[in-house]
Every structure is written in structure tokens, then in C-alpha cells.
């Protein structure tokens, strides 16, 4: 057995243990902390599966952003004093048995792959050069399955609309209730002053390098969103009221540009979301740059939650 497979087995054991503990620990706070650790371990698993783009997304969004979102929810709910309703023992046993059946079914599928594994990798590599991109995953996201990526942006916007519309009437158009610390500590302010310049450069770099290496709009946008949230949490800048025009403009800029280029594809190329010959690379870079900004704003506002205070004039 090679060192790599020993590492893989240890990693899987650790992922399963941490994953189970997010379910089994008593307090919600401990569960959320476990979940953040779980996200980071999972991103190592993605590296082992040779999917570095996915690993970056998982670490940034799956572990980091979701962890932040859940931590904020725990801090706001403070549900420690809730009478702990426990599900009865027979139900747990039945649920456990049924879940074991599901796992067994999936395991059978995993252990019996089809004789000829279907793959689209050769087709992707064959058609990648005309787009000018070097990263096949970026090629799939922005060329071959651009419609998916466009619709995904719309889903994120819809989710944000949903979150916003859950605000009480008096707070509509106001500022999100992202107020973790009443009085931020000096170390946090120090970090919020020192880190954002580095983080912004890093986010832009991730977006730029995504054309030929792992990285891209999602990952870069998440880093930018994290920097913005850090500045807000440290109290250096207020969270914007959601009625601000610039905020809404930034939110829709990326998807709108994407859609406009897609529609132009009907005129200048032969299909919706098709890029005209020779212009693919600059168009994709333009879309990706604008999308990075839109994603950053959308993710940050999603993490900040619904508006809670009316807008102060």
C-alpha cells in the first residue's frame, strides 16, 4: 500500500468522523465549527481527486462563506436555552436503518462502475483552443455550458431577493443586521486595515489566472466578498442599505453583461451565448471580471442577511 493511499484512507476517516460529529455534537455552535473544519478537509479531498478548481470553491464557499453564514445565525439565535426536544429512540433506530440502506445502495453503485466509463474530457480538450482559454473547467463554465453559469447567477440573485424580502416591513430598504461585535477589538480592526489590500489583489489575481489555471470568478469573488465583510464586521465601514442604487447596479451588472453578450451571439455568431470567431477570449474575460464583482457583492449580501434596521438618512 502506498503512502498516498494511506493518506487517502486517513483523510476519508477524518472527513467521516468530523461529518458525523457535526450531526452528533450537542450545541449548534460546536456543530458549525465542526462544519467549517469539515469544509476544509473536503477541499483536500477534492485536491486528491485532481479537481483543484472545485477544491478552491469548496474551501472558499463551502467551508468559509457557509461557515460564516451559519456562525452568524448561531450568534443571533442563541438557542442554548431551548428545551432540547429529542427524537425518540425507535425513530432514531428506524432512521439509522433506512439511512444505512441508502448508503448501501449508493455503495453498490460506486463499486460497480460501467465497463466503459463515459467521458467528455477529450471533446472538451478538442474544442478548447478556439476559446483562447487554458483551463478546461473555465472552458466548460463559460463556453460549453455557459447557460448553466448564467442561470446560476440568476439563482444567486433570486436567493438574495428572497433573503431581502424576509425583512420586516419597517426595515425594508434598510441595512443588513451584520453586527457581530458591539465594539470591535483592536486586533480585529488591525486585521481589517492590513488584510484587504492583500486580499483584493489576491481576489483579482484568482479571477485573472482562472483563464488558464485553477481559479476563476467564483473563487475570486468569494475572496473579495470576505474582505468586504471583514471591513464591515470590524466597524470600519457600515453595511450599505439595500436600497442603494450602486449596490443594485453592481448586483445585476455581471448577469446583465453576460445576458447581453449571449443575446448578441444570435446576431454575430449563430446561437444564443455563442461567441463570435476570434473574440471569445476578450468577451469571456470581460464577463468574468464583471461577474467577479457581482458575485462578490451578492455573496457578501447573502452572508449579511436580511435588512434589520431602517435606513438612516
Amino acid at each position: 500500500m502506498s503512502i498516498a493511499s494511506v493518506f487517502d484512507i486517513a483523510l476519508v476517516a477524518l472527513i467521516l468522523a468530523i461529518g458525523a460529529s457535526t450531526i452528533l455534537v450537542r450545541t449548534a455552535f460546536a456543530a458549525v465549527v465542526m462544519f467549517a473544519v469539515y469544509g476544509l478537509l473536503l477541499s483536500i479531498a477534492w485536491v486528491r481527486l485532481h479537481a483543484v478548481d472545485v477544491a478552491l470553491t469548496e474551501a472558499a464557499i463551502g467551508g468559509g462563506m457557509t461557515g460564516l453564514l451559519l456562525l452568524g445565525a448561531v450568534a443571533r439565535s442563541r438557542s442554548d436555552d431551548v428545551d432540547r426536544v429529542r427524537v425518540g429512540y425507535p425513530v432514531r433506530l428506524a432512521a439509522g436503518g433506512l439511512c444505512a440502506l441508502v448508503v448501501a445502495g449508493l455503495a453498490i453503485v460506486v463499486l460497480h462502475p460501467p465497463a466503459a466509463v463515459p467521458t467528455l474530457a477529450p471533446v472538451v480538450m478538442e474544442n478548447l483552443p478556439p476559446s483562447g482559454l487554458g483551463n478546461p473547467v473555465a472552458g466548460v463554465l463559460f463556453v460549453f455550458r455557459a447557460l448553466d453559469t448564467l442561470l446560476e447567477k440568476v439563482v444567486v440573485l433570486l436567493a438574495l431577493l428572497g433573503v431581502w424580502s424576509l425583512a420586516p416591513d419597517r426595515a425594508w430598504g434598510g441595512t443588513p443586521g451584520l453586527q457581530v461585535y458591539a465594539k470591535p477589538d483592536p486586533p480585529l480592526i488591525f486585521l481589517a486595515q492590513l488584510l484587504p489590500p492583500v486580499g483584493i489583489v489576491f481576489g483579482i489575481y484568482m479571477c485573472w489566472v482562472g483563464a488558464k489555471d485553477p481559479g476563476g470568478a467564483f473563487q475570486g469573488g468569494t475572496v473579495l466578498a470576505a474582505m468586504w465583510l471583514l471591513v464591515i464586521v470590524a466597524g470600519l465601514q457600515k453595511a450599505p442599505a439595500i436600497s442603494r442604487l450602486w449596490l443594485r447596479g453592481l448586483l445585476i451588472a455581471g448577469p446583465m453583461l453576460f445576458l447581453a453578450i449571449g443575446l448578441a451571439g444570435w446576431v454575430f455568431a449563430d446561437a444564443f451565448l455563442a461567441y463570435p470567431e476570434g473574440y471569445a477570449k476578450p468577451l469571456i474575460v470581460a464577463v468574468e471580471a464583471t461577474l467577479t464583482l457581482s458575485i462578490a457583492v451578492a455573496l457578501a449580501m447573502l452572508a449579511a442577511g436580511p435588512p434589520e434596521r431602517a435606513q438612516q438618512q
Partner: protein
Amino acid sequence: MNAATLFGLCGAALVGIGLYGLITNPEPLRKILAFNLLGSGVFLLFGMIARRAAAAGLGGDPVPQAMVITAIVVAFAATAMAIALVQRLADETGRASISSDSSDAVDGEGKS
């Protein structure tokens, strides 16, 4: 057994763990967590499929990989929406649990 199969089995087990948590835990926040766990298990199954389909000099099939990236972002958006819903529910009702009052054993269908 190769690494792809190993991580595929890990994904299968995570689906089971997530499903169990989703059914047995009455707190909505914990249900959301469990649902994320279930989702990441499914993503790992996709990762296994991508890795097995490695060809043309790539470490994996980029199509499932790109789909997982999209899925992770959508899962985050859904989680944010679910948390906002749960918080609004808690604000309105003052309860942090969606378990029914009459019986503490029936909570199976109460998905968050």
C-alpha cells in the same frame, strides 16, 4: 481499490450521515447543516465520476467538475435563504424548534 472509489464510498457514507441528521435533529439550523453535509456527499460522488473519466491528459472530466462548482454556489445561496427563513420563523413564533408540541417523536417530515 483506487482513490476515486474510496472517495466515492466516502461520499455515499456522507449522504447517509446527512440524511440521518436531517431526519432526527429537530433544530432547523442543525437540519440545514445536515442538508449541506448530504449535498457535499453527492458532490463527492460527482468527483468520483469525474476522476474515473480522466482522459486526454486531464486528471478528471472537467464537465462534472464544473457542475460541482455551480452546485456549491447554488447550495450556498439556498443555505442563506434557508437561514433567513428560519430566523424569521424564530422572530415570529419565538421558537427555535419546528418539532410538533404533542409528540416529541414525530419530526420526520419537518424539513427546513
